[in-house]
């Protein structure tokens, strides 16, 4: 099967010495793609920056202006985690544009799987604020663009951190279903199962937090037992994946215990949510151990395009089964008792 990806971006000048969100991450992801030896089955797209109209579907114009000026003046630290350089805003616009371009190409072809290999990552970026290494919310920008064209969009976020930015942006949007598995407790602290969406989109947010040490079987159960029935009811036209690989057991900033093989399984499950070929795009989010990123990207994409098998087998036996059942019960209670749900942002 064809893998449709953006051409590699020149991201070397979005860097901060010693910072974990670094250019080597993207090189590792591309090495994972190369490991698949796709030949002519890899389609590389030139990338145009996202337009202001596309960005303002999810970001405040004032924030974009301030971020642009901040970068133009040389950049610096935006918060304790997040930096920007002179080149960061332009790179972030290209990253967002890469997602738009990949999805447009998938739509044109009507087949294949998309891979948006970009940085900075996006899923923590809020409407009016950079956060958690993220400047612009790449997956949300694409989801909003699809919704504007009348599509229903499922966003599956298997990054180890909750995608608070994406959740916030679509809190009241009935045409987006946001599904997140994430470690808890962990940054950013949101993602409780009782966070189920706003009054206009109750049930369109689905969170399954899992404890430190959770293995792949726990996340598979979260998708199979909690998410799958909701996805079936929602009937998405498109599936976008916020694919962080920091739930891997080797990752230095989190404590889950997944392997590359688990990402292959998760990818296979998520592919089953897509309504037809050519309606699935995978966006790189976190992942800070370079070998784990390489192996996990190869495993996940390999499973989607029927290429090389994962180099690590799936994992099981860690804690978290009870958390999945608890998440389902909490979610049901929140949906059945309006006013009892938790609201973030």
């Amino acid at each position, binding site marked *: 099967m064809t893998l449709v990806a953006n051409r590699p971006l020149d991201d070397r000048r979005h860097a901060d010495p010693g*910072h974990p969100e670094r250019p080597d991450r993207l090189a590792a992801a591309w090495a994972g793609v190369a490991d698949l030896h796709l030949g002519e089955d890899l389609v590389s797209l030139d990338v145009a920056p996202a337009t202001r109209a596309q960005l303002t579907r999810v970001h405040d114009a004032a924030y974009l202006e301030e971020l642009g000026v901040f970068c133009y003046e040389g950049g610096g630290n935006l918060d*304790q985690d997040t930096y920007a350089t002179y080149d960061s805003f332009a790179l972030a616009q290209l990253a967002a544009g890469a997602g738009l371009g990949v999805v447009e190409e998938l739509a044109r072809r009507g087949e294949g799987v998309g891979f948006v290999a970009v940085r900075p990552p996006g899923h923590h970026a809020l409407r*009016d604020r950079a956060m958690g*290494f993220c400047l612009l919310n790449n997956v949300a920008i694409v989801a909003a663009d699809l919704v504007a064209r009348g599509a229903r969009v499922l966003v599956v976020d298997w990054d180890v951190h909750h995608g608070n930015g994406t959740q916030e942006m679509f809190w009241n949007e009935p045409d987006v279903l946001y599904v997140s598995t994430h470690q808890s407790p962990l*940054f950013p602290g*949101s993602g409780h199962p009782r966070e189920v969406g706003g009054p206009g989109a109750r049930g369109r947010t689905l969170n399954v937090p899992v404890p430190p040490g959770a293995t792949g079987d726990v996340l598979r159960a979260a998708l199979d037992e909690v998410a799958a029935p909701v996805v079936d009811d929602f009937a998405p036209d498109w599936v976008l994946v916020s694919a962080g690989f920091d739930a891997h057991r080797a990752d230095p*900033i989190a404590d889950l215990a997944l392997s590359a093989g688990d990402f292959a399984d998760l990818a296979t499950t998520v592919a089953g949510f897509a309504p037809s070929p050519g309606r699935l795009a995978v966006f790189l989010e976190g992942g800070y151990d370079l070998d784990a990123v390489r192996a996990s990207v190869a495993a996940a994409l390999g499973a989607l395009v029927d290429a090389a098998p994962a180099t690590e087998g799936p994992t099981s036996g860690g804690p978290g089964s009870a958390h999945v059942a608890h998440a389902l019960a909490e979610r049901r209670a929140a949906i059945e008792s309006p006013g009892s749900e938790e609201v973030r942002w």
Partner: protein
Amino acid sequence: MIDVIAVGYDHSADAAVAARFALRLAGATGARVVFLHAAGLRERFEHAEHEAGPPAALVGLIAESGLPAARVDWRVEDGDACTVLQRAALDPVNADVVVVGTRGQGAHAGLLLGSTSLEMAEHSSVPLIIVPAPRDDG
């Protein structure tokens, strides 16, 4: 009645100003003070080792205030500052009031929209005190 004062502390100069104010307020009201430090993504990567107790600078402020140690807590929570401070109103902190500085680490003059204090002003479920930093007219 103020029983518990929660204070956001991120090691910045503005956080120290907020800490001094909160300690004085606790002295005047008899309240307990809970210092909350939000541990971000990068902090985990760098393995900061402050979870066992407050940093030296804060220990100095606490000693200076004369408040008994039993009335001061230090907690490190995973999360962004605003989420951690919003949760202060809930169990186990149960804060009656939250105190923050005007700006924290990494903040700068331009991106006012990104400040924790303004986020908290919009979302806090308990009274919020934003302590201004001393004016620098020099």
